């Protein structure tokens, strides 16, 4: 019996001594108190916040121009930045020179130990628009001497691809595109899901039956082939932004059904709650019951299920783009970058091209941990 009570209930006498903060805590505060007990979810949340924080800063953090082809330095392995030399703090990279292996005739690069390319902070290199409208060429880190830039446009800390583009800068842009596709896709499925699920759950009966059958039909269609079919139908001559939205819509086609089910189930459950009947008997209108009583009761559940469905969207986009059916160059995304690694021999010879998978894994895991924590905190009264 003692173990049943999760939330302390107290005698009137002890209410005085009881934490006033607890008594007046809203659901969000209670949720936060509960969520912060999940250390893993907290860490995951911080990691994701960091990823999303790079959105406006992608180009600023990016080192080399991600669109610049520099075939002289294609397939360059990741180059470490050395921060110290004999004279103390003196960030630099070692110069590289190309050579051809005399036995295999395979081209390659080797480090020139005594030739140092100095690295600077807040340097001026390639030009971009900060936040889309402020033209600037400042970057967090880069090659400080403009003379060196002609020989080597970037530091290549994550190496370069077949066209000699800087992998790190491309990764920064991919993070923005792929993560935002997840958000936009989930936002679209959320809207459809809440509207249809809400109608289904609030009115029930025939409307509910029809919507449920539609959801079942959609659920019966295999995901990947339909995605592939729909993406293949996206006209070749569409601009990057148009394709971007087309892909998010395609991803949302499956995403909303899950959300609609959650919303419908919650509505069904809440319709039977005493406090909803109590509001009805008090004379509250249907609109008030829906928006003041029912919806706030599952905001938190929606947030939790959002955080669990975003990774699906990200993986979906990555898979489509990897297959060449999603976004297209010149757009950059995780999937597009991974296209470089489609060929097994490329993977064997230039394994750093696979590095893109690392942020994908981190992001997906982080979303799952975060979602778990949120789901647990979502009902602080349970």
């Amino acid at each position: 019996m003692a173990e049943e009570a999760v939330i302390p209930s107290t005698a009137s006498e002890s209410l005085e001594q009881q934490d006033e903060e607890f008594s007046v805590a809203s659901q969000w505060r209670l949720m936060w108190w509960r969520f912060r007990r999940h250390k893993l979810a907290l860490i995951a949340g911080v990691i994701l916040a960091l990823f999303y924080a790079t959105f406006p800063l992608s180009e600023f953090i990016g080192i080399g121009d991600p669109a610049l082809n520099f075939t002289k330095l294609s397939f360059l392995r990741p180059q470490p930045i050395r921060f110290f030399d004999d004279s103390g703090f003196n960030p630099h990279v070692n110069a590289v020179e190309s050579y051809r292996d005399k036995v295999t005739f395979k081209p390659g690069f080797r480090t020139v130990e005594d030739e140092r390319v100095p690295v600077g902070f807040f340097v001026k290199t390639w030009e971009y628009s900060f936040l889309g409208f402020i033209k600037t060429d400042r970057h967090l880190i880069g090659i400080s001497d403009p003379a060196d830039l002609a020989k080597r446009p970037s530091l290549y800390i994550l190496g370069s691809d077949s066209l000699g583009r800087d992998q790190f800068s491309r990764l920064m842009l991919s993070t923005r595109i792929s993560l935002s596709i997840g958000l936009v896709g989930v936002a679209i499925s959320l809207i459809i899901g809440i509207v249809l699920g809400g109608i289904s759950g609030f009115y029930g009966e025939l409307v509910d039956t029809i919507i449920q059958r539609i959801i079942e039909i959609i659920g019966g269609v295999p995901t990947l082939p339909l995605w592939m079919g729909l993406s293949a139908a996206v006209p070749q001559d569409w601009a990057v932004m148009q394709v971007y939205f087309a892909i998010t819509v395609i991803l949302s086609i499956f995403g909303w059904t899950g959300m609609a089910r959650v919303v419908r189930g919650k509505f069904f459950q809440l319709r039977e709650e005493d406090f909803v009947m109590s509001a009805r008997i008090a004379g509250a209108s249907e609109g008030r019951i829906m928006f003041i009583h029912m919806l706030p009761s599952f905001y938190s559940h929606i947030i939790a299920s959002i955080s669990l469905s975003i990774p699906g969207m990200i993986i979906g986009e990555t898979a489509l783009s990897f297959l060449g059916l999603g976004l297209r160059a010149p757009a950059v995304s995780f999937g597009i970058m991974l296209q470089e690694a489609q060929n097994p021999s490329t993977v064997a010879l230039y394994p750093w091209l696979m590095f893109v998978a690392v942020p994908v894994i981190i992001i997906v895991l982080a979303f799952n941990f975060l979602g778990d924590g949120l789901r647990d905190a979502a009902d602080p009264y349970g």
Partner: protein
Amino acid sequence: MAEATVETTNTTESGTLLEVNNLVKHFPIQKGFLKRTVGSVRAVDDVSFSVTQGKTLGLVGESGCGKTTTSRCILRAIDPTSGQILFRKEDGETVDVATMPYQPLRDLRRDMQMIFQDPYGSLNPRMSLFDIVGEPLLVHGMKSSSERADRVAELLRLVGLRPEYMRRFPHAFSGGERQRIGIARALALNPRLVVADEPVSALDVSVQAQVINLLQEIQESLNLTYLFVAHDLSVVRHIADEVAVMYVGKIVELGDTEKIFANPKHPYTSALLSSVPIPDPSVRQDRIILQGEVANPANPPSGCYFHPRCEYATDQCKTEEPQLELIDEGRWVSCHHAKDLDLTGLSAK
């Protein structure tokens, strides 16, 4: 509202606040993909009773007997299948709640309110006491927040809570305190009829008495009329002036509390009273142990619904359905043998 008005002359006696006539609620049983209706559960099956202004009618029975459904039909929380629910408004006009359209019904909510059983589920945990208790005021037009705060403070004081608690959320309160909050909310609009659906059965024994006392105090001071739905017979004995005993959707006995408890006329009432464990070890008595199970309201037995469990059942009971008949002053019983049987009741030693 004129269409809902019924001539007051022959239907409603003076002093009667609520009169229920032949109330029926059937829940359809649906099957299959197309949800065809294949039958119905007769949750409330031709129920009639009336409640006098300022008095308490106890509606008792076991789970599934239809007492909760009856109470919800009266408040139109669910729509009855048929029957009349006549409510006498303050101006003397009598309206039929059963067929009332939405808008006048909403206005009538001022007059009829409800206290719920579950002190945890009946308060929205995401709202502060101010919002919970003040909601009926807000939706009935009291827009000014300070006016509402004054009224909420007054209501909280009335039910024995401090007005300072207004900004708190329900999770800070115990079951008994939450039930007080629920009562404050029900009283917000100055109702005349309060339907209390098992208001103390979820509470601990030591807290129950406080809430029972509170309910009686406010009844006296506000001249409230209660429809008190309960399964705990000793609570009903304490609080109700009249009792209606229900069995499988029907009222089997109706009348003055004292008389029914001391001298039941229906075998089911007698068995029900005899089943109650008495908190006194010296009165361990021979009980009437009813055999078998409560009848299924989707497929009730022929004749009297109680006959398969009744030790006095005759052939007449198996075929002929008894009607609720007046057998004594203010005493209604639905049993063919009501006048012949000498049944045991409960009386003080």
